[in-house]
């Protein structure tokens, strides 16, 4: 049964010259799991918001959207509120009340349901999502993943027929994100719930999807079964770099047959090759002799009777190095950066920055031409109305930057995309000419094209002599760009090394490519490694062309 149909939808924001959405038509059947992908600014969010009339943006609209055969405008308010669920990107901001149980009941209270109905529905939903344990807690105490599960549960409690999610996992770490995807898949399977999801991280989402919608510049350019849609994507580099690793290998090799999506399918795909040669040469990496940051036996905790967050941390980063710290949530990665940048004082242990003890940097001199820390949420740094004022405020001249912000000068910082915000924040920080740059989750919530752009900027900075330490969850990012990586666990570093060796030794905390190829190749961790090896080996039953 058809649940949603969009026909010839056009939309233009007020004061804008071009259409944000152009002639969009598609249909969803009941029980579809559809993924909407596209670069930042391609109109994904606008389209999703058009489908939920309470939060549709204002502007000129033409075309027809109907839900269960009823035009969206004619849909009763109550029906629209209950039957179309909407989950947003930032869990922090969509939670309304202070207690978990109250948040779950919020939607039902709005509908004016009786106390008995509410308590029954709330109980059911808390069970299904495993919320019982933290049912009485305050929202402020929850982790990011729990908050997003709560947002989902408090929408699901209204029994929607269709669920729309706008980049729901952008703020989560990969493991939590993959759990969240599995929950969505379970909802889809258990209740035949129709799901429409926009997402950057397709590695987890696509294997579940029945339908892939691709948006480019406000147009819907592809709509169909994921294997087929991706196989036809060959010439669009921007889009391809966001696809799952298996599909990227397939596309780069220009292979024939069904396009693989998951790690399992990717492994089968690579097994079609001869795979006699197991590894490529590794480029020797030698670090500089001088230490940029040295932490020795550092201990830290937030309160006297709380456990140690850092317990005996030893960490050495050499000059002109791009160093990535990986690890699970709450393992102390962010705290390490706070301690290394002096905003939190270590309980004991030695911290030296460029060979000088951190305590001997007096009167804020640590932050002048020495260390800079970029927070996870870069919006914390913005206080002006335009990018230009923002740069003037930091006394930063746009010409000296290693990247170009000139096109964005008159925009409000909050209106920039995630990647652009990251660059603007970087620009503000670079004005102090730091030699050691500490970054907290720089690529979180970025689409793959912006990720690549940011990485290029960072590599350029490194080549100009800046030491970079980045905390990240993104193993793909670290494997591709870092000089050295370290794995954090319970307050200290448990292993470190160069990415190729580091990731091929790990068997769980590693890239999708490494998981796919570990039996065939010994050190393939990135898509280009795998592609190279497949090319060298050649398909079974063909002559080697090398």
């Amino acid at each position, binding site marked *: 049964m058809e649940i949603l149909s969009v026909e010839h939808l056009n939309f233009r924001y007020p004061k804008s010259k071009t259409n944000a959405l152009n002639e969009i038509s598609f249909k969803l059947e009941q029980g579809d799991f559809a993924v909407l992908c596209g670069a930042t600014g391609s109109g994904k969010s606008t389209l999703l918001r058009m489908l*939920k009339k*309470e*939060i549709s943006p204002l502007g000129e609209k033409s075309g027809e959207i109907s839900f269960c055969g009823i035009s969206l405008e004619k849909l009763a*308010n*109550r029906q629209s*509120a209950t039957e179309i669920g*909407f989950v*947003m990107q930032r869990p*922090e*901001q*969509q*939670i*309304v*009340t*202070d*207690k978990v*149980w*109250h948040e779950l009941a*919020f*939607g*039902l*209270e*709005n*509908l*004016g349901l*009786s*106390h008995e109905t*509410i*308590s029954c529905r*709330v109980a059911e939903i808390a069970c299904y999502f495993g919320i019982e344990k933290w049912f009485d807690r*305050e*929202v*402020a105490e929850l982790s990011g993943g729990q908050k997003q599960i709560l947002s989902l549960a*408090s*929408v699901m409690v209204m029994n929607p027929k269709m669920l729309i999610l706008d980049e729901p996992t952008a703020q989560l770490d990969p493991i939590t994100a993959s759990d969240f995807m599995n929950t969505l898949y379970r909802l889809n399977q258990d209740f035949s719930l129709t799901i429409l999801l926009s997402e950057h991280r397709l590695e987890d989402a696509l294997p579940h999807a029945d339908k892939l919608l691709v948006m480019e510049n406000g147009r819907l350019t592809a709509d169909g079964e994921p294997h087929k849609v991706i196989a036809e994507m060959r010439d669009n580099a921007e889009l391809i770099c966001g696809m799952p690793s298996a599909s990227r290998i397939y596309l780069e090799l220009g292979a024939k047959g069904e396009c693989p999506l998951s790690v399992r399918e990717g492994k089968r795909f690579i097994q079609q090759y001869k795979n006699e040669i197991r590894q490529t040469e590794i480029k020797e990496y030698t670090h500089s002799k001088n230490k940029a940051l040295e932490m020795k036996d550092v201990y830290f905790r937030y309160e006297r009777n709380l456990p140690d967050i850092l317990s005996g941390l030893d960490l050495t980063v050499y000059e002109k190095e791009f160093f990535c710290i990986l690890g699970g949530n709450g393992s102390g990665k962010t705290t390490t950066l*706070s301690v290394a*940048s*002096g*905003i*939190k004082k270590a309980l004991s242990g030695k911290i030296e920055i460029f060979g000088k003890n951190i305590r001997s940097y007096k*009167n*804020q001199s640590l*932050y*002048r031409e020495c260390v*800079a*820390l*970029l*927070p996870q*949420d870069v*919006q*914390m*740094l*913005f*206080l002006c109305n335009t990018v230009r004022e923002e740069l003037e405020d*930091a006394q930063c001249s746009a010409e000296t930057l290693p990247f170009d912000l000139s096109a964005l000068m008159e925009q409000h910082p*909050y209106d920039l995309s995630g990647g652009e915000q990251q660059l603007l924040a970087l620009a*503000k*920080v670079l004005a*102090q000419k730091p030699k050691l740059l*500490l970054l907290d989750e720089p690529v979180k919530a970025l689409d793959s094209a912006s990720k690549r752009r940011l990485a290029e900027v960072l590599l350029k900075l490194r080549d100009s002599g800046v030491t970079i330490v980045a905390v990240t969850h993104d193993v793909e990012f670290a494997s591709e760009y870092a000089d050295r990586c370290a794995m954090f666990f319970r307050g200290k570093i448990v292993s470190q090394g160069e990415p190729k060796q580091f990731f091929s030794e790990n068997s769980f905390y590693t890239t999708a490519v490494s998981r796919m190829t570990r039996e065939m190749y010994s050190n393939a961790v990135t898509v280009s490694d795998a592609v190279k090896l497949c090319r060298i080996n050649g398909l079974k039953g063909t002559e080697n062309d090398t």
Partner: protein
Amino acid sequence: MKSFSSMHPITQAVWFILTALCVMFSMNPIIAVVSFTGAFVLYIFRNGAKGLKTHLWFFAMWIGIVIINPLISHNGATVFLVINKQPITMESAVYGAVSGTVILSVLYLFRTFSQIMTSDRLMYLCGKLSPKLSLVMSMALRYTALFTQQTRKVQQYQKATGLYKEDNIIDTIRGGVRIFSIMLTWALEHGITTADSMTARGYGTGKRTQYAVYRFSSADTVMLILSVLFGAVTFTAQISGKMNMEFYPKLSLTEITPHGITGYISYGILVILPIVSEITENIKWKYYLSNI
């Protein structure tokens, strides 16, 4: 049966209001002592012997009142001694002692009250008056927590990105202004998303109801009836002047009549109700454990 701490918010609120009102509007040494003993025992029962320092402060305050009152008020017939041509009277000291005890017992009552009446219980009570008010309060609480968290973070990161130049007051003030400005934008942006999330979940489509996790059980009924009954008896005794106390010029307690005695006894029972409820629960639990 439930212990007093886990009873319905309305039951708890009624008890607290009655007990506190009775003691606040009577300047009667017996009522004051009974009320203080009850409030103190209830507090100790729930918290144990922790926080000795605060208890000491409270008693120091009591002693302070006993000393200061005769120094300020010189009414009364029985003069102890004369300081600086001003008489220090016994009546005034006793008045200080009684009012000190009243204050102390109200303080202890409120300490227990603030522990038992958590924010969601208070919110529920507000919601009985108006569901909208309770939602606003809930949102405000959530928002305050978020706002403080965010402000602290912004402050640290502003520092770490080298935006303060020196360690001096002017720079710190300027930093404060910057942080305020950042927080303002953040709050507006945040508010819009929250509003979207509210309308998306049907806020404003009709009349709201209030959901609460509390149930009104038989124990609540019993407790409520007892509280109101004994509270009312005490009040009538008070209003009819059977429990009055004259301090000046000479100490004199109204002649003790049967009506007055019923007043004292019912206040005693009122004060002891929650303690009895807590103790019975404790005994029941111990008994239950010993039977496993």
